[in-house]
């Protein structure tokens, strides 16, 4: 068996809530991020990712509180991203308890922030997130601001550049597939993973455990970030605590889940399946807290 693949629950955060959208838009409230984080940790998550999806619009202290509360009780790596613009922003989330940060907009606007941050905090702390959209001419271009802002930057060139600037990992998100359950963009993931020698985390599109297998074997992903697939599974079996702050669209949890494209699964189900398919992943005793 080859390298050990990581399965990373990705928790998109808006204010105090865990949310999930489609194509990074149309956010639905799913509950409190800490509740999901604790559950995923105990269920054998290999890392966790918190992404503040509307960072610039909200008070950062709320995110720092969520990070601190989570980091206190979770002994696996925690990656935090969303709206980190400066070295000081990065330092603040690391202080709050994050182990690494992911940056997108700031890196595209000012690529030197990658090398500067890598020098200060270490390469392994700096993850560059690339939000890719396939253009009509089949080229993949990088976008910022949750896939809304056109940059004209070509994805593969950008991936090579961020590696040379000292990024420790890359998250490649297919905006076209995000939240759809249609499967990962294998061509995109494989092209990025083959172009660089740093680890690549695939994100966007998982609708079944088969898709996860595909993106590892055909997409050459080193790790897979999964959101809807896991969240919807958790929603089926658990009572969701909603805070006093019921902002946002909560109809989804009140009315039950209607997402035909997502065949949800839990972490142990995913890992057991991958292992049976000959893919190495962390299973067994140390999968529980």
């Amino acid at each position, binding site marked *: 068996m080859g390298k050990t693949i990581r399965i990373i629950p990705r928790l998109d955060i808006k204010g105090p809530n865990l949310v999930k959208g489609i194509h990074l838009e149309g956010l639905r409230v799913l509950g409190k991020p800490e509740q999901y984080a604790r559950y995923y940790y105990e269920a054998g998550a290999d890392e966790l990712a918190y992404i503040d999806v509307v960072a610039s619009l909200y008070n950062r202290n709320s995110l720092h509180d969520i990070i601190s509360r989570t980091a206190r009780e979770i002994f696996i790596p925690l990656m935090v991203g969303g709206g980190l613009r400066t070295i000081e922003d990065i330092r603040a989330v690391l202080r709050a308890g994050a182990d690494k940060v992911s940056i997108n907009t700031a890196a595209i606007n000012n690529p030197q922030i990658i090398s500067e941050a890598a020098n200060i905090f270490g390469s392994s702390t700096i993850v560059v997130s690339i939000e890719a959209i396939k253009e009509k001419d089949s080229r993949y271009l990088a976008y910022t601001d949750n896939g809304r802002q056109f940059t004209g930057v070509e994805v593969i060139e950008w991936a090579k550049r961020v590696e040379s600037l000292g990024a420790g990992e890359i998250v490649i998100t297919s905006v076209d597939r995000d939240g759809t359950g249609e499967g990962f963009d294998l061509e995109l993931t494989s092209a990025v993973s083959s172009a660089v020698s740093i680890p690549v985390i695939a994100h966007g599109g998982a609708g079944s455990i088969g898709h996860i297998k595909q993106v590892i074997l055909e997409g050459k992903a080193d790790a897979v970030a999964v959101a809807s697939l896991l969240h919807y599974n958790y929603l089926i079996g658990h009572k969701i605590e909603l805070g006093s702050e019921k902002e946002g669209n909560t109809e989804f949890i009140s009315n039950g889940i209607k997402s035909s494209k997502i065949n949800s699964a839990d972490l142990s189900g995913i890992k057991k399946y991958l292992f049976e398919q000959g893919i190495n992943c962390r299973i067994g*005793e140390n999968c529980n807290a």
Partner: protein
Amino acid sequence: MLKPQVGIIDYDMGNMFSVLRACEQVDLLPVLISNKKDMNICDAVILPGVGAFAKAMENLKKLDLICGIRDFIASDKPFMGICLGMQLLFSESEEFGKHKGLDIIKGVVKRFSPKNERNNIVKVPQVGWNKLNFNGKFSIFNDIKDGEYMYFVHSYYVVPENKKDIATTTNYADIDFCSSVVSGNVMAFQFHPEKSAGKGLQIYRNFAEIIERG
């Protein structure tokens, strides 16, 4: 009973938060220390670290901690090195040219080659969970079985001169590299026990027991 006091060396090389939390979790009293005097009143010391080898040595030197660490280890109290904190214990590193380390354990620090023997591309850094293969029985690994997964993030690995110092090996890029060292009162890990879930915390629990046994 008073909790044993563990000094965590704070020399501006990465995040101490999770090391602190792991100590608290196993009923140790962690304190951040950045001078020799504070180190000497501790029952045990942890040297963590993320980042560049040369900068780390420079920071230790600035804080006048190089002799402090050597003296503390000579006092025979338990000492734990984690990740870069393990590599610094060695004689020298080939990271961006040659750099002298603390030279407490004889050996060198090397970088993973970007190609393995079969000429396949190897992802460097290694980021993720990998298995420990034991090279003997050690009380720091009580209740941890051979083949257990721990969390790694690193581009460099240590090569001890004395094979007896190697407590565990781990396979990456077709290399069985030394993933832990146990040499007297010094215990050092390439992986992050504080990021390795329940079994990682077990290592901290074992460390606490070693401290209490004195």
